[in-house]
């Protein structure tokens, strides 16, 4: 099947009437209300193929598990998506009002600020994307996916099961470089394999040190292996302090 966007008219209606739309979402466990509020044919088919787009909402899973399972599913289903398309609000709002509706309801709900952050884009650019309930699944997987690993979603699994580490990292500008993110998460996994425990405070200190590394040098100039070695050295020293 092809993925559907909301039309510009429907997107404007959605974004310009937050209080009314939030009320509809809170009051309706399924998305049948959209037919009454949005104009006819408010969804248009894109050229993007989406295979096996099925969200899991089993209540037996933890929220970290649910996020990881659905992030992996979404990343696989939308394998043809590029960054420009994935920054398009119309795509994520279209998905939120159709296939992703129930997942968003179960995972986040729409009460209070949840609607602003999880059903909408509270800020332009990356910050809005890493908070929107569905866009974040794709963008955080894009940050952590490593096709050179035996399991390309190994870092993604770690990241979604350490979401406080991940979100703090995502706020850093250098997290736009998959190579730098890869080095950091690989080092975390390696350190934990050695039986050492990483705390949130350790990660905050490490992220600052990585930023400092970029004060006189350009971090992006380091090779993947160099970065891994540097980060591993830094996190080990921080833990043992």
């Amino acid at each position, binding site marked *: 099947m092809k993925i559907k966007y909301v039309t510009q008219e429907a997107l404007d209606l959605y974004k310009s009437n937050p209080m009314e*739309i939030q009320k509809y979402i809170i009051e309706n466990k399924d998305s049948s209300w959209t037919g009454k509020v949005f104009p006819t044919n408010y969804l248009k088919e894109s050229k993007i193929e989406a295979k096996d787009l099925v969200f899991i909402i089993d209540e037996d899973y933890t929220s970290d598990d649910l996020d990881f399972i659905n992030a992996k599913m979404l990343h696989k289903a939308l394998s043809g998506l590029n960054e420009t398309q994935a920054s398009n609000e119309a795509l994520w709002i279209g998905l939120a009002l159709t296939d992703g509706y129930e997942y968003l309801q179960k995972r986040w709900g729409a009460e209070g600020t949840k609607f602003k952050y999880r059903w909408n884009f509270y800020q332009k*650019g990356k910050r809005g994307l890493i908070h929107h309930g569905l866009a974040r699944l794709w963008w955080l997987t894009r940050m952590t996916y490593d096709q050179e690993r035996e399991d390309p979603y190994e870092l993604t699994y770690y990241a979604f099961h350490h979401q406080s580490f991940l979100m703090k990292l995502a706020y850093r500008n250098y997290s736009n470089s998959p190579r730098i993110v890869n080095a950091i998460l690989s080092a975390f996994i390696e350190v934990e394999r050695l039986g050492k425990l990483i705390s949130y405070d350790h990660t905050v200190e490490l992220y600052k040190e990585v930023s400092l590394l970029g004060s006189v040098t350009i971090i992006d100039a380091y090779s993947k292996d160099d970065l891994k070695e540097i980060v591993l050295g830094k996190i080990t020293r921080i833990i043992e302090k």
Partner: protein
Amino acid sequence: MEISNKLFPYPVLASFNDDYIDSNFDVTVKVKSTTRNYVTFEVLVLLENDHLLNLIESDLADFAIHIECSSTSYRSLVRFTDLSYEFVVPSGMINAKVTLCPYILARKTISDYINPLFNLYYEGLSFYIDRHSIMAISLPSELIIAKDYDEIKKVSSIFTLVKDLSDNSKDVIVTPDDLIKIKVPSKQYEDFKYLSNAQGQSDLINAIIIVPAIIGVFEDRKRRGELFVEEYQETRWYRALKKALSKKSIDFESDTFLEEDSLKLAQILLDSPITKAVESYSKIFESGDIYED
């Protein structure tokens, strides 16, 4: 990557400091072409410092461009040694504003770096330059990647009508987003929509809605100056308006814009909508399409 005013533990060639004398590093980056698949960038380097040039020729240093696009979170580094260079980025990876920061980076560690054109206060000193360290910086370029297939041709198309779902709404509200939204009460929404699409009625809508909205935009630009430019530069309506104004030889981003008359400009851009609206309304009236009770 905001780099100016940064302090380094060694001399760096840059326009914002005086670490070097009689030297210059100035890089121009332009978009050469944009297609559906690739954006091609063209780089022209001006380097006036023979010692740094020698370091590049002997593979101890090279030129680099750090590329970042905030809307797609794209980030990468290209490195090269030629004074003119071209590189491509897949179109799908960048959109709207792209920031390109040019540098000279050390490829290898240089343990006793001396340059004959160091400023006098570094006379007799040598420096340890770690590999990948910044040795020179040129001012960053901010380029807007305008994809032709996404371009707005008519000024009136930068506005979009939105229905106000609130029960008590009475007024029209104008909010800038990627396009400028004109939110109208739900009772009148269909009427507005009908008039916008009806043959021969666009002047009426332009006169009563678009002209005041566009004047509001111009006045806001005058009030907020640079801040306004920074906030909206990446939006589609801003780019379209800037282009339409430049066709009339008016620079939307220059200070001279402050002296322009907003009402006059709005009428020029929309091709005299007020007089045309009055004319077409009179014709309707004369033809008997409108009756008084």
